[in-house]
């Protein structure tokens, strides 16, 4: 069963609002900033899987895009923590 696009959209909106909540003073800045980027990575993954419909087959496109996402997330979070 394919997940209905509107459900994916709802999940994306909820994730966006969650990161909105995390940007405030409710949580420690470092944890909040890290969580916000991880949520973004989760959202990007949803878009790739369900909106772009990029499946693991045929390779290698999905693999490349997944590696891109992992590297991008690591760069942003890594740069933040080192600073």
């Amino acid at each position, binding site marked *: 069963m394919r997940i209905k696009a509107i459900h994916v959209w709802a999940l994306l909106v909820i994730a966006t609002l969650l990161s909105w909540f995390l940007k405030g003073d409710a949580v420690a800045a470092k944890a909040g900033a890290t969580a*916000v*980027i991880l949520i973004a990575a989760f959202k990007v993954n949803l878009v*790739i899987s369900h909106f772009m419909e990029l499946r693991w087959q045929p390779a290698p496109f999905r693999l490349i895009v997944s590696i891109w996402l992992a590297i991008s997330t690591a760069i942003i979070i890594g740069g933040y923590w080192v600073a």
Partner: protein
Amino acid sequence: MVQDNLNQTGQASRLPGDSGVWTFIIADMAAFAMFFLVFALGRMEAPDIYELSRQKLDPNLGLLNTLILLTSSLFMVRAVDAARIADRAGTMRNLVLTLLIGSGFAITKVAEYSAKIDAGIGLTTSEFFMYYFAFTGIHFLHFAIGVGALLMMLVKARRDAMDERFVQWIESVGCYWHLVDLLWIMLFPMLYLMRAG
């Protein structure tokens, strides 16, 4: 999360859209990964300046733009689905909605840029703002090309046969439009939301 290798029409898994367009998409994603790297390295050098600059951004407009692009993407998915069952009216209706909602992004972005310029903030204000204008500007160019591609699809949806070729066209444009969305999903928290600890 349940996910199998069949799409809605029950075809075996295949690459949505054109493989050449995917080359462009992946090259483009690589370019944005470079942007993230450049930003991360710059921020490591001067976290305080980056934080002060970040606080001058309006996260409300960033949030609004995220929601606009996500919603526009939803209608893009529906347009592709409609095209797959050769539903011409549905394809056109959803393409129009994709465009209408998507154009909100341009309005917000223009408002945001002009507010920055009115406040005396420009490309040369700080390294943060150089990157802010550069990355969002290049992203905006992607958006503008996407709008052009969507308009072209609207013309094609009116005129062309709803065949396999058309489905490949609309899938390609759809994937590109989602690229515009997903790049913004990363840019938004990186520029607007990462508070210094």
